[in-house]
């Protein structure tokens, strides 16, 4: 009975997503269709996905069906297990919230020259593609769904195509998506050659030789890593995310990157069989590099959405560090700790989906009202957009991994996993794992600095440009969506035991190892290994905060009389007695990052240009100062330029066969014919 319910729900989910696309085709003629049909259907699809996830994770329902579509000898197989259910739930939450945000946000495109029906059509297709990727149970269905997801998101990234820079960014995105897809296809090819057919069930039982297994691991890491955004394959992320409409950026950064992580986890833990600790070290190295690189670039960028894109790169690095810990422990015979590492990774996947989507939706609201992308032009928005400011603050607190919010829980679980390194036999690993954890601590602290910079420059202080001064709060739809996500961030931070219990069902189905200790002491205490080892009680900390606020309120009431005689008055801030403070005198975002530039100066390629204009009458008195800073991604120079040069050289060599002479071409056909005849005989 429940199985058929799940089957109907799955069918309904996919069909509402596709229905949303189809209904949006009429949106050019009737714009209200987006608001009344397309986005509500999308939201329905999201809620149904969430319902499926709840059924799978709480009730343990599963599904495995075969659809009569696809190739004649390889029909589409769809399968719903705990891992798929978890990721389907993530897709569902974010889709539902984006569909609340969408109608108010896309209203601005009604007067633009861009096609609304394209936006709605491809959004629905994008979501349907992602859902199918998670549900797919054979290589063909997976690749088809992956391509649908990539191509649909290409059209969404290229939505505002009248500007050449946007077209270039979208092309780069499509190019890298295709290269990644080819790598994944090669990896599936390796599996296919060791098993009977291309279904994932056959992949699960395939026994790969050690060399081929490592090759498959490398291809999967490169292919899925390219989509997820691992350094040095991340270059499309900072170009594509800022260009897309903000709710699409939220979907891409919050969900699509996680679908890539899903693919990698499925391949690594489900198909690859016995894990090797060298893979764990590779994951740790790649993850640490990605995390540090991402956060250092996020610290110096001044475009708001580029900062968020680089911060996504950093968080993907953190997820891969957790996966690296998990693989290392599993390969060294410590299964409980391996499970803990995987739980930390999945928790961070959920957290990042929540707070990064929140931040992108916030950024969309800010950019729409202030008409500015650049942090250096914003300021003082907290007074003008108080609710957006509050939700942005909650998002920044979550992503900076501060208690009692959700980002802190996944980071705490990661540190607890790393601390158990003494259980390992190998001394080298026992030394390396704490060093990786120290790098993780550094990235966490740098992320907090980055978001202090972002929030402080955009919402606090004084406005630095005209539009920002006149910004107003956004419409209710956008606010409700942000409020939902902010509330979810706080909830997942306050109730970590419940989330860990949910994720525990996923790891139990993947790794066949239960994690009973974590929630053994009730919903109040999170004790991953044991209460004597470490325990964390987020609700009690929140209670402490609430008690502090209550105490403050009591004192406030008690002091009411003295406050009436001594009211709070407003004065000028301290200006050393010179007077005339202007908004130009505040710290800019670049200035905030200057100490970090001094410490980490070799990381970036920074081009600074300072032009000083002196007074005509008094040559030592400066009249004007212009400071220009250009940040370039180093990976272009070190990785892509040599690769590009090599490709051009190789193609130049190959182009020698294009001589231009007709007789040479006839000779080519003649030679080919001779070779073919010889092969046949």
């Amino acid at each position, binding site marked *: 009975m429940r199985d058929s319910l799940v089957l109907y729900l799955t069918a309904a989910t996919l069909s509402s997503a596709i229905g949303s696309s189809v209904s949006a085709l009429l949106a050019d003629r009737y714009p209200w269709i987006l608001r009344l049909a397309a986005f509500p259907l999308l939201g329905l699809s999201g809620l149904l996905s969430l319902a499926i996830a709840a059924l799978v994770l709480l009730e343990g329902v599963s599904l495995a069906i075969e659809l009569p579509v696809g190739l004649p000898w390889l029909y589409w197989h769809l399968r719903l297990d705990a891992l798929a259910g978890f990721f389907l739930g993530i897709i569902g939450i974010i889709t539902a919230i984006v569909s609340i945000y969408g109608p108010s946000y896309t209203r601005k495109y009604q007067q633009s020259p861009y096609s609304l029906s394209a936006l709605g059509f491809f959004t629905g297709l994008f979501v349907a593609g992602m859902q199918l990727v998670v549900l797919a149970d054979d290589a063909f269905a997976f690749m088809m769904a992956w391509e649908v997801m990539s191509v649909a998101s290409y059209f969404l990234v290229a939505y505002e195509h009248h500007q050449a820079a946007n077209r270039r960014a979208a092309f780069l995105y499509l190019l890298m998506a295709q290269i990644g897809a080819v790598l994944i296809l090669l990896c599936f090819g390796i599996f296919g050659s060791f098993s009977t057919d291309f279904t994932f069930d056959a992949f699960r039982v395939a026994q790969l030789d050690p060399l081929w297994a490592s090759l498959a691991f490398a291809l999967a890491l490169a292919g899925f890593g390219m989509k997820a955004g691992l350094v040095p394959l991340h270059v499309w992320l900072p170009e594509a995310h800022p260009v897309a409409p903000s709710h699409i950026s939220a979907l891409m950064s919050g969900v699509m990157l996680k679908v890539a992580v899903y693919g990698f986890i499925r391949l690594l833990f489900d198909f690859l069989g016995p894990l090797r600790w060298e893979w764990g070290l590779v994951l740790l190295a790649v993850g640490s590099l990605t995390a540090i690189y991402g956060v250092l670039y996020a610290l110096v960028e001044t475009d708001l959405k580029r900062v968020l894109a680089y911060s996504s790169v950093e968080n993907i690095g953190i997820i891969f560090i957790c996966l690296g810990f998990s693989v290392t422990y599993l390969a060294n015979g410590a299964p409980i700790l391996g499970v803990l590492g995987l739980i930390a990774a999945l928790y961070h996947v959920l957290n990042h989906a929540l707070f990064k989507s929140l931040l992108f939706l916030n950024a969309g609201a800010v950019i729409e009202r202030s008409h500015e992308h650049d942090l250096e032009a914003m300021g003082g928005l907290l007074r003008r957009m108080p609710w957006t400011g509050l939700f942005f603050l909650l998002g920044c607190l979550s992503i900076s991994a501060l208690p009692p919010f959700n980002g802190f829980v996944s980071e705490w679980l990661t540190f607890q996993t790393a601390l158990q390194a003494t259980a390992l036999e190998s*001394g*080298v690993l026992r*030394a*390396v794992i704490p*060093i990786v954890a120290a790098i993780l601590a550094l990235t966490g602290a740098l992320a907090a600095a980055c978001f202090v910079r972002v929030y402080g420059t955009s919402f606090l202080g004084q406005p630095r440009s005209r539009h920002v001064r006149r910004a107003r709060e956004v419409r209710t739809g956008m606010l409700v969506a942000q409020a939902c996500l902010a509330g979810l961030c706080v909830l997942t931070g306050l109730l970590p035991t419940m989330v860990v219990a949910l994720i525990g069902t996923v790891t139990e189905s993947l790794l066949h190892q239960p994690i009973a200790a974590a929630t053994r002491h009730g919903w109040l205490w999170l004790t991953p290994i044991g209460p004597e080892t470490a325990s964390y009680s987020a609700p009690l900390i929140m209670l402490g905060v609430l008690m502090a606020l209550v105490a403050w309120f009591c004192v406030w009431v008690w002091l009411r009389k003295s406050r009436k005689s001594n009211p709070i008055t407003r004065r000028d801030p301290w200006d050393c007695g010179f007077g005339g403070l202007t908004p130009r005198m505040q710290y800019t975002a670049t200035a905030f990052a200057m100490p970090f530039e001094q410490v*980490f100066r*070799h990381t970036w390629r920074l081009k600074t240009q300072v032009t000083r204009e002196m007074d005509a009458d008094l040559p030592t008195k400066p009249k004007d100062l212009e400071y220009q800073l250009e940040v370039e991604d180093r990976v272009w120079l070190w990785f892509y330029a040599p690769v590009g040069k090599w490709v051009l050289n190789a193609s130049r060599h190959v182009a020698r066969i294009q001589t231009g002479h007709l007789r040479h071409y006839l000779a080519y056909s003649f030679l080919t014919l001779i070779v073919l005849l010889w092969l046949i005989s």
Partner: protein
Amino acid sequence: MTRYLELQLVEQAIITLAAMILVTSFALLGQSRVVATIRTFAWQGWLLALTTALVAWDIGHPHLYVSALLTAILKGALIPWLLTRQARQLGILRDVDSIVRPGITLLIASALVVFCYSVALPIGQLVEGVTRDVVAISLANVMLGMFMLVIRRKAVTQVVGFMALENGIFFAAVAATQGMPMVVELGVAFDVLVAVVLFGVIFFHIRESIESLDVDALNRLSEGEK
């Protein structure tokens, strides 16, 4: 862990001093002023002498006391004094040899220590007594001394790096084989002393030739065509 607590206080002190010697090796990598480098090297000499004396007391080989005294006089007092005097005569005592990339240097140094640990694991099985645990530390000191030779640019700091390398080898000998035969020790000690004197003479001549003591500028002395 409980095994560590079962060791006697002397043995725990030896292990602590070994870790402190490792810290001085890190410090030698990170010091930018020449005066501070020579002073840190002197500290390393004193710590090494103290460790040798404690090992002598623990194991009961009296010739190690002589070894310790020799180390203290030579590496703790005489060689630093000679280096300081030469540097002052050449006018380079107040120089600064700045570190190019301290973050990467620190990471590479810690990677070297972990690598030495993994290499020294099988050696540790063959050694008896408390000094088994410090074989890895002594090997790490050797590697860090060699790393210092690679990354330093001024000639004086390179000499100190060479001395630190020799310190590491001496420490490895104390740890692995409870000291070298006396003849070998005296020979090595006097070789080192002579080397320091010779370095001073060579520095003087180099400086006359190319008017700088930056090691990277020594390529000016090559005769080949450019």
